[in-house]
């Protein structure tokens, strides 16, 4: 049973990482209607940026912070220059971001090489603790804690800040929000940057566990799409529940039903969509 406990915690940690990347994708799509197929790039490039920072600065946390800031800025630039002109034209956005994803993967290869790399676990957390007969690496626990803190932060933002209210309203009814005179451009830009930064956080935190390689953006994207579709677009709760579900099923699946692991995740998503076409927590009309 201790083996099960370890698997569960690993699954939770993995789920938290997925949560960090999926949150951006979900809110951005729910609010702005932008399906960013290059979203995985924030995760991966965030990790690579941290790698470069670490070559000069020897603090994991400084690297993480810098990476988040850099990627948030990159996200902002991306939104303003490339995506803004296609609001309303979903297809072009999808195609554009899809092409970007390919380009970014190769740019990563150019700058950092094609090899699998990883970040060292921050030394403060590089040990395991024993709980009875269970030996568990502390770092994973840290990841879970960060995820929970993030969820709490989002809950607070949504409930108690004006921005949170605007976003909630915007997800429900975009036109109304702009009709109310709120500076939609600013909101969109801020949300996009925030989502990018969170994605980068996930990438940096995840790197000691998952490693990084140029094509990783695609793999992460597929998983976060599943999370988002499963949980419902435009809701952080959906992203959290979806991410934890996907993370657990993926890890537990690998441990106990290795031949079914990835298929299970997809089947779950298909099943949920068939009975609730808007996802578990989704509200926007997604049915034609």
């Amino acid at each position: 049973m201790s083996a099960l406990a370890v698997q569960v915690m690993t699954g939770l940690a993995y789920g938290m990482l997925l949560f960090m990347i999926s949150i951006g994708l979900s809110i951005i799509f729910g609010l702005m209607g932008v399906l960013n197929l290059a979203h995985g790039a924030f995760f991966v490039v965030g990790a690579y940026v941290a790698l470069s920072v670490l070559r000069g600065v020897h603090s994991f946390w400084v690297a993480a912070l810098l990476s988040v800031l850099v990627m948030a800025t990159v996200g902002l630039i991306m939104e303003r220059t490339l995506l803004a002109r296609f609001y309303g034209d979903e297809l072009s956005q999808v195609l554009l971001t899809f092409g970007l994803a390919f380009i970014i993967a190769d740019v990563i290869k150019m700058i950092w090489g094609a090899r699998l790399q990883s970040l060292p676990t921050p030394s403060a957390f590089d040990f395991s603790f024993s709980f009875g007969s269970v030996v568990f690496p502390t770092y994973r626990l840290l990841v879970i804690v960060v995820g929970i803190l993030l969820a709490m932060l989002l809950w607070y933002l949504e409930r108690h800040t004006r921005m949170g209210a605007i976003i909630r309203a915007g997800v429900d009814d975009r036109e109304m929000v702009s009709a109310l005179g709120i500076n939609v451009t600013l909101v969109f830009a801020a949300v996009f940057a925030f989502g990018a930064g969170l994605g980068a956080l996930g990438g940096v935190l995840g790197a000691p566990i998952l490693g990084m390689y140029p094509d990783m953006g695609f793999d992460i994207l597929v998983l976060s799409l599943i999370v988002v579709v499963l949980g419902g677009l435009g809701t952080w709760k959906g992203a959290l529940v979806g991410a934890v579900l996907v993370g657990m099923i993926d890890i537990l699946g690998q441990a106990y039903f290795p031949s079914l692991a990835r298929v299970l995740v997809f089947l779950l998503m298909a099943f949920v969509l068939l009975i609730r076409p808007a996802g578990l927590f989704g509200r926007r009309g997604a049915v034609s």
Partner: protein
Amino acid sequence: MLLMLSLPLFAPSSITGLVTEIFILALFAMSLGLIMGYAGLVSLGHAAFFGAGAYTVAILSQHVSNAYVLLASATLVAAGLAAVSGALFFRSAGAYFLMLTLAFAQVLSSAASQAPSSLTGGSDGLNVTVALNLGFGEINSQTGLYYTMGGAFLIGYVLLRLFVSSPAGMITRGIMDNELRMRALGYRTLDYKLFAYTLAGALAGFAGAMYTYFNLYVTPDFLGWIFSGEALIMVIVGGAGTLLGPALGAAFFTILQNYVSFYTDYWALVMGVVFVLFVLLGRGGIVHIFRSLWGMFFRTGPGGSAEPQNADDRTIPSARKGEMS
């Protein structure tokens, strides 16, 4: 035209092989072009049908050797998958549909990967020893394959043309332009979309089956969303609103993949940039470029301007309007 017919006679074998591969991929791209340009459905899972056709031939060929049986089975399997998935997924709109098709492709890809090696070869793929025999001897040589695949391409093109000019095809186009209106006019839009989707799936499966004869190897990648995405790139770069546009896109893509990769490690970058440029400029792909070269003189159809649509237009930016034939 004459050039294409006589190619194997004078071109080096690398070119002949390349064009043979292009014929098959062009067929695949055209089938995606059909649902994108005429039914307005954007899918990131079209490779599922291609791969299904490819795997059907690969697996069945171990027990059956009749080429017609193999090809027909592959096409039917793909058509079946398209019909079922279409029926299930059409309920969801736009981005959800896109993600469902992606997931569908990945389920099949994972299934092929995880299935016992003895059946599908697992993640290593399956080596196939099969020779195409259409009743007059085995077609093994490069020249033979070239003409066969060329023929397959033509058949596919003809079929697509037939559909597009048929009443059913017109109606499908109408549905893409304005589904509500068509429904108000009494058409059962779902049926028409499903028919187009199934036809496209069948053609993709046929292409996949042919590819197995050419490549003699199948891999789960043939089923997945990245390959589907590559088909999408072919369609957009070639020109989404026309039948042949995607074929040109397929040619462009394959040439780039084969030649650029020999000179630089970063061919995906090149392809990505080209693709993004086409999207940003909103043109109708390569087809549009050639049209412009030919001049206004040859444009057909009412208001036959091939100017790109506004970015606000939710439909595919292309020279579609001049396409009624």
